[in-house]
């Protein structure tokens, strides 16, 4: 193919889960894409937006729009950050018609990772092998705001030696919610403990998701409970052979 794609790895992956970004790049390169990483990228602004700081969010969003202006395909390893860009940037620039036009055009160029694979690259089998029982956690924003449900399952379904076991409450929130996780820590903790109960019930050894943020929450709770289940981003599973 030889097409160019730009990575927006998200601030969380950049700083805490670099392996997710590297895995995403390697899957895309394996499919023949030329992968670029615009170095000026930082964050989508969601932490400020969700905390009620619109001016601050707008500044960060403007930086994003500028940084990715020259890229036709932007792939993001997060349903939540993708949602911020394609659903909430427009709200931030409601009163700026020119920027709003740029946002409308940007929305068409930004892709959540699994959806990019199934809809743009048109693949399901990326040649991965992962000999484990896994369960899948639907991130809320990817699931409800982007409608991503089938894509990751189709991709996981074609990974060799992988067994997917759905959990009872796969679509129930893990309780992360950004600053919610620290503003309402006890409540957030109760929510993630229900989540890990559902995970453990499946007998899976790995939890897979499209969002590093959910995984940080789930992994943190699993580790605190002393449970030997690990968490991986879909990109990491698809990069395994």
């Amino acid at each position, binding site marked *: 193919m030889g097409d160019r794609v730009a990575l927006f790895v998200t*601030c969380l*992956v*950049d*700083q*805490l*889960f*670099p392996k997710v*970004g*590297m895995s995403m790049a390697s899957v895309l390169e394996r499919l023949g894409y030329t992968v670029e*990483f615009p*170095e*000026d*990228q*930082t*964050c989508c*602004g969601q*932490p*400020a937006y*969700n*905390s*009620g*700081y*619109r*001016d*601050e*969010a707008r*500044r*960060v969003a403007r*930086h994003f729009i500028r940084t990715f202006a020259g890229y036709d395909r932007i792939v993001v390893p997060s349903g939540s950050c993708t949602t911020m860009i394609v659903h*909430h940037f427009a709200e931030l620039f409601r009163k700026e018609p020119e920027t709003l036009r740029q946002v409308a055009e940007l929305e068409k160029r930004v892709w959540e990772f699994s959806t990019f694979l199934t809809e743009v690259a048109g693949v399901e089998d990326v040649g991965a092998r992962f000999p484990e029982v896994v369960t899948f956690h639907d991130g*809320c*924003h990817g699931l*409800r705001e982007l409608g991503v449900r089938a894509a990751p399952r189709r991709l996981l379904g074609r990974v060799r030696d992988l067994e997917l076991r759905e959990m009872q409450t796969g*679509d*129930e*929130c893990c309780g*992360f*919610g*950004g600053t*919610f*996780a*620290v*503003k*309402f*820590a*006890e*409540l*957030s*903790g*109760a*929510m*993630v403990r*229900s989540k890990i109960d559902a995970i453990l019930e499946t007998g899976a050894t790995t939890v897979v998701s499209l969002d590093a943020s959910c995984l*940080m*929450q789930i*992994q*943190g*709770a699993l*580790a*605190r409970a002393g449970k030997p289940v690990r968490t991986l981003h879909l990109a990491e599973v698809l990069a395994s052979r």
Partner: protein
Amino acid sequence: MSVEFDQKVHDTLADANLQLAIYTSTGRLKRGRVASVSGEAMPDYQELRDQAHAIKKHAIDNLDYYLEEFERNVTARGGKVIYCKDATAVADFVLGLAKERGVRLIVKSKSMTTEEVDLNERLEHHGLESVETDLGEYILQLAHEKPYHIVLPALHKTRYDVADIFTRELHVPRETVIEKQTALACGVLRDKFLAADIGISGANFLVADSGSIVIIENEGNARLTTTAPKIHIVLAGIEKVIPRARDLATFLKLLARSATGQLLSAYTSVLSGARRPGEIDGPDEFYVVLLDNGRTRLLPDKGKRQTLYCIRCGACLNACPVYRKIGGYSFPWVYSGPIGAILTPQFMGVSHEPALPFASSLCGACGEVCPVKIDIPKVLLDLRSDVKKAEAREGQGRMERLAFRAFAWLMTHPRAYEMACRMAALMAPSGDGSWLKSVPPLMNLPPVRAWLSQRDLPPPPAKSFRELWRHRR
């Protein structure tokens, strides 16, 4: 309110019986809803939601027009419409009428709007007896409690709790069999129905083109409340008006399914005025009290006023992972769950309960199940912005505001961002944070402490993604 809210949340989370009661009841309703609106059971579910949203939007956009039409039609049928701006006005009206007619006993059917204005308390304060006739509400009235849930008010009470309440308040032998408890309540309430001179009900819908009110219920007590006493008073929020009787077809299909998973509730009553000559039943006098109580405050905001589309089905509570943990009493007002979180701050002003719009992970489950498609997460986000603006005006929350200003600066200066992140990574807490105990100032950062109170933090990687990327070729 944060301290009080946190305390209530903490108490609810710590109560294992309560946790089980909330989880089981909401889970049953949630599964019922899912089954009743599935593609097989209801192929046109999404179209109906769009329709319901459009009708409500149209009604609220033209609220003055439809309220006037409703009033005209009620009056033409011999009823009377009274506008009340707040709780005091409602109580004054009911008390005045009761005094004029020499009424001592009032029966009530379930109505969140009467709860909203503390009607029972206000009437009892003036020596009137006002008896709840919905079983759940009756139990709570005896227990001196407010509804725990919009649809299942006594969801937090087990039959053993009910046995204790009945024994204590009605002085009867302890009875734990649910059917027998129900029969006992029926016996007490039947006498009240026969002796009462005023019946007070709520309304699920006010139909403008017919001047009718619509009440949906399962127990039949609302039928008795609205027909046995000589006087029927309806209390409803002004937002309950819908343009046409034919619009009911849309809402009736959605309401019971969303609330309980029933295809239709046991009783749907369409009541149009007092008894007319030649009719065999119905009240002699019919009053509709239309309540503002903060509702008109919402009208100027075209985005957030969708909150007024709510038909009080409770589906958002049952779907909400937060409500399912913290229950009804953690919320500061009678409206709980996601709808309470957007309604309370708007009715009372955002400064009244500033933490409320933030007590959500923004998972979107509420918006997904709302039969009238209120974008609850979007309204929550707008309210969060309103709260922060109010804080800035009042000079509160300075530390957080500074932190987000710093965040915005760093995120628009990539080199500074990279350097700051590297420095933070060098000092950051890792794993369970144990090594960090030697660096108390970091450990004591409130967000770090809050995170570590519930879960571990991943150890920071040796290199960030951008460093790995630079060195990989």
